[in-house]
């Protein structure tokens, strides 16, 4: 294993795939300068300006051009800089990319990766901190990926780039510099829809994903030190998501806690609970709880922002409440 960071793991994955497949290319703002976060550092020098394309701040066309280029047989990585800016490209994403394969009866192959660094970024306020991945799980036609660590970032990016589906890839931007490890040698693809079984236990099942995972694991370790062993799943992809793994765990524990950084109301946690009730029946589930952000925009001032964040202490408290 090699020590690295999440952002570097992602960079190495893109580098590997661009060397492997000459039809893979990147378009987005500032990517020729390495990207806002360094995800594409050094790539302009290796691949040139036709494959590392710095674009105007023109999200509609960044998104739509990526689709057009896919329709003639290339595999674009569409870099959105920050998730929040995808709102300027929603027609191209929702009406075009997600629909063309279906609407044209299978003629179109929208093989794009849309990278959207999302979530909290310290004190960046309401337009630079959002987590709306649930919107896209609701959208037929796309795969929704939300890794939490370097190894998954790399392996899932490889899968995303090779996929013929449009893949919405939510990089956890609060974790860009988090240290991690990736395997030596070629980065292997990680399949969509397979959760990471991050902690093992029988007391309750905790399901989570993306930037909040480290806090959940901290909480799980604290709970374990108190003798409460949680079975923790990092979903890694929320469409498709690993219903089999969650259901198998829940059959043992009977208690479910879903933790996400996104607003709790209408979040993907609700879908997970509903799906499990449908699948296992209400009698198999003693408790099903959600822990997410309050339904307020993300505020700026540090103490206010902390009100929105899901701290390990909040997770511990929610887990204990689920055991009552």
């Amino acid at each position: 294993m090699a020590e690295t960071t999440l952002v570097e793991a992602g960079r190495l994955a893109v580098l590997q795939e661009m060397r492997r497949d000459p039809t893979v290319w990147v378009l987005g703002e500032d990517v020729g300068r390495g990207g806002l976060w360094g995800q594409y550092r050094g790539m302009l020098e290796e691949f040139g300006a036709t494959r590392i394309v710095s674009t105007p701040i023109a999200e509609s066309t960044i998104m739509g051009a990526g689709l057009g280029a896919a329709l003639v047989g290339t595999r674009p990585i569409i870099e959105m800089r920050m998730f929040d800016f995808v709102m300027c490209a929603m027609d191209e994403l929702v009406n075009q990319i997600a629909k063309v394969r279906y609407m044209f009866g299978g003629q179109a192959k929208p093989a794009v990766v849309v990278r959207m660094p999302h979530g909290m970024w310290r004190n960046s306020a309401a337009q630079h901190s959002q987590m709306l991945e649930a919107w896209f799980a609701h959208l037929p036609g796309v795969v929704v990926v939300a890794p939490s660590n370097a190894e998954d970032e790399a392996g899932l990016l490889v899968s995303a780039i090779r996929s013929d589906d449009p893949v919405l890839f939510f990089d956890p931007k609060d974790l860009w510099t988090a240290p991690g490890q990736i395997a030596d040698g070629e980065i292997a693809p990680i399949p969509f829809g397979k959760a990471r079984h991050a902690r093992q236990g029988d007391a309750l099942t905790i399901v989570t994903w993306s930037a909040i995972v480290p806090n959940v694991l901290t909480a799980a370790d604290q709970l374990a030190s108190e003798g409460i062993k949680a079975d923790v799943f990092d979903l890694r992809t929320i469409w498709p998501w690993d219903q089999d793994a969650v259901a198998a765990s829940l059959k043992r524990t009977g208690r479910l806690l879903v933790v996400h950084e996104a607003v709790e109301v209408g979040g993907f946690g609700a879908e997970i609970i509903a799906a499990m009730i449908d699948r296992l029946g209400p009698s198999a589930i003693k408790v099903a709880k959600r822990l997410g952000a309050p339904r307020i925009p993300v505020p700026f001032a540090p103490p206010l922002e902390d009100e929105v964040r899901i701290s390990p202490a909040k997770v511990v408290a929610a887990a204990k409440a689920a055991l009552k």
Partner: protein
Amino acid sequence: MATPGGTPAAAGDNLKRLTDLYRTMVRIRTFEETALEAYKAGEIPGPLHVSFGQEAIPAGVCASLRHDDRLTSNHRGHGHALAKGADAATMYLELYGREGGYCNGKGGSMHIADFSVGMLGANGVVAGGLPIAVGAAQGLKLLKSDAIVVCMFGDGATNRGPFLEALNWAAIYSLPVLFVCEDNGVAAHTETRTVTAGEGPAARANAIGVPAVSIDGNDPLTVEETAARLIGEVRGGGGPRMIHARTYRWSGHTATDAAAWRDPKQVEAAKTRCPIARLKAVLIERGLAPAMLDEIANAARTEMLAGRAAANAAPWPSLASAFDDVQDAGAVHG
């Protein structure tokens, strides 16, 4: 020599080429007349946007395209598809939502696509095709193809952001795109001039850095000649160009829209500028036998009636097919 259309005859000397142009226009007109009849008979569900009076533009532009050139279209795209080489009978199947249609009944009139002839799809969102077109051109360039992309859109699209973004994009990357603004003067149900500032589409394009010309889009010879020249420039690596083709939509926005707000005299005046009648006059003047023109019209009528009848008799797609072609990973099944 000037033709009745006021066009220098240079591009029009090839009688075969002009006859083909005429045939394409007549097929578009007849396709839509037949579709409208079927719609009124209750055979075709959903919205149907016809383009009576605008036929010279797709026919004239596509006359100079290669099979591997790509085209993006809009909601009023039957003519674009036919001119690019799509099959009328398969289009009817799609209009009817039947098995074997271009989209297997998933798209209908607003989403006709035939990737096998480079027709990358009609689009239900105004200006939706512009970003896709420039990206297709960028992809073709990356693949070292010398195919080009034609992007068809209406005057209404020039008030949406993607018009600015996509033209700027095509110019900065010097992409092989011919933008074609079919200016029929009406954006849905509103006269475009009442909601548009400035000098119009060509001025906007020129200001962005995409050389544009305004032409009479109801003059088939002018359209064909202008498109041939600009397509040559685009294919030669000259970067994007735009044609602003002025025309007039005889019908309402959709098949159910009578456009009763319009002065009927305006519509009647527009019909005197019918592009098909104008090219017909040119062809007769140049010695094409009237019987040949009748034959073209009759063949088109026969083709379209056969397409209509076959579509009306075709089966619906299987219900299970509603779940096909959504996505590979995470697909759901009925």
